[in-house]
């Protein structure tokens, strides 16, 4: 398969997935019992007020028309309006755009934490395979993987903010306030990647070209970094890329624990306010990023490794 065909195929399936997400997100609002107008209007609304909200949300029109309008809002980039006063309030998209950078910053910082810690840990465990270093790294990784993020985050907060007071905690701003949340959101991935790096390194270290490199007298460090790690990195980077989406959903929990503004907190607020257009918008944005990142990782992988394209 040529690169072009591969790209088209992958984009096509991505578009299908996003369309599927849109349909699901739309369907939830309309299939479930309960009237969204009730939540917005409150108990004492007059029939006229209720009617106005209904018209504003487009609920008085037939379902297919509503769905087209919904898709229209996705296409025109507003993601819908907040009723009952669409002119006086920002569009859903602008509300999301306001918090979006915070979540992306958190996810990227989490990714950095994960990669920067995982690579040395995995390499050392692989090189010192079977020793206590390896065992320690394995036990540490497995216990971190076993801990739910919503327990990990409070523990980090307790130790580094309340007991040791080394790092700023919730509600504070500035770059240093990003450290704890980034560790909290990235630690899981770190453990996963460390395990991955270890097994990938062990496999690569038994390859012929590593033996050749050693035989021709290269210093061990150059063998490890230049020959082994470079080849062992492929699967690790792929998994890291594919897991970017999990950092986004992890951010929902972390943003709640650290009271950090972001997509997750906006989503939770919107849910408790029964603000459906915002809920739909947040879910859609997270889903679309997730799908897009996966496509990019697949493409990058396909470019580097021609065997993937045939699959």
């Amino acid at each position: 398969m040529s690169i072009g065909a591969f790209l088209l195929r992958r984009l096509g399936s991505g578009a299908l997935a996003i369309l599927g997400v849109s349909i699901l997100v739309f369907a939830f609002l309309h299939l479930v019992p309960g009237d969204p107008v009730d939540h917005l209007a409150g108990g004492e609304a007059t029939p006229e007020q209720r009617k106005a909200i209904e018209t504003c949300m487009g609920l008085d029109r037939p379902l297919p028309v509503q769905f087209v309008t919904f898709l229209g809002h996705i296409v025109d980039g507003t993601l819908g309006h907040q009723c009952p006063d669409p002119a006086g309030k920002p569009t859903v998209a602008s509300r999301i755009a306001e918090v979006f950078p915070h979540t992306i910053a958190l996810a990227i910082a989490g990714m950095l934490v994960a990669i920067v810690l995982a690579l040395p840990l995995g390499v050392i465990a692989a090189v010192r395979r079977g020793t206590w270093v390896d065992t320690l790294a394995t036990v540490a990784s497995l216990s971190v993987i076993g801990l739910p993020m919503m327990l990990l985050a409070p523990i980090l907060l307790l130790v580094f903010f309340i007991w040791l007071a080394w790092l700023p905690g919730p509600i504070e701003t500035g770059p240093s306030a990003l450290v704890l949340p980034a560790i909290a959101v990235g630690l899981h991935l770190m453990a996963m990647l460390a395990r991955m790096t270890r097994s990938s390194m062990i496999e690569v270290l038994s390859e012929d070209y590593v033996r050749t490199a050693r035989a021709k007298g290269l210093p061990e460090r150059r063998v490890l970094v230049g020959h082994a790690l470079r080849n062992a990195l492929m699967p690790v980077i792929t998994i890291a890329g594919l897991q970017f989406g999990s950092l986004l959903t992890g951010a929902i929990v972390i943003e709640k624990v650290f009271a950090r503004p972001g997509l997750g907190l906006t989503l939770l607020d919107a849910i408790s306010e029964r603000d459906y257009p915002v809920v739909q918008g947040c879910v859609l944005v997270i889903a679309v990023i997730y799908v897009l990142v996966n496509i990019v990782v697949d493409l990058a992988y396909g470019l580097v490794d021609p065997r993937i394209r045939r699959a």
Partner: protein
Amino acid sequence: MKTKLSPSGRIGLVMLGVFVMLGVVGPWLAPYDPEIGKLAQRYLPASSAHWLGTDSKGVDTLSQLLYGARAALEISVIVVAISATIGIAVGTIAGWFRGIVDELLMRIVDILMAFPGILLNIAVVATVARPGLGVMIAALCVNGWVGYARVARGEVLALRERDYVLAAVALGATHRRVMLRHLVPNLMGPAFVQMAFGFGSVILIEATLSFLGLGPQVDYTWGAMLEQGTSFLWHAGFVHYAILPGLAITWVVLGANLLSDGLRDRLDPRQRGRA
């Protein structure tokens, strides 16, 4: 020859066993009602009357944990049972009939797998003002079946070429009979691995939803306790409010993962020791 379950698999089995036992008998062991607090007994430290102290509403923490075990057990057993049934049925049908049926069903699976599962769970729960147990179970089943469908389909694609299946078809067995008598019983092994794993992930997702305030509106689910406990972190001496429910969740998830790894190793020794 059947090989024995690996030591870690056995540890997982014991860990899950403890959880199931506490889930069954927990509410009878619980010394207090988990929903009725006494305002005069708020924030009590551990004592002989309240082994783990009381929370901000004066509710006994130990009782909450035990009732929480029951809630977690109920949800996970129901969700795993429903998801596995739907998934195995879908996967078997897709793998057996192939063609357009397979294509259609697997596209649905692809779409559900294309974005984070918990986001879908949140979206479902968010549609209802006060999600009860039923909504929670529905939300977890919406995409819970997907993993089972994949496993079942993969197995059926291999099984359909086996001689005994060909023989059954040659003898004139109906589709229904082939699927129920020959295919499903033979794919239950891998399905059990998936079920053990699913058990852990259901508990984790349920706890996450409760933690986010989107769970069934009761105070004693482990996720809700953990959420409440997180706000106690600043009170010295009340750290265990957050740690205990968190460890309870970890216990079950870890047990389920160890057991599913052990089961997988037993089914396929080549996989042994892989991460």
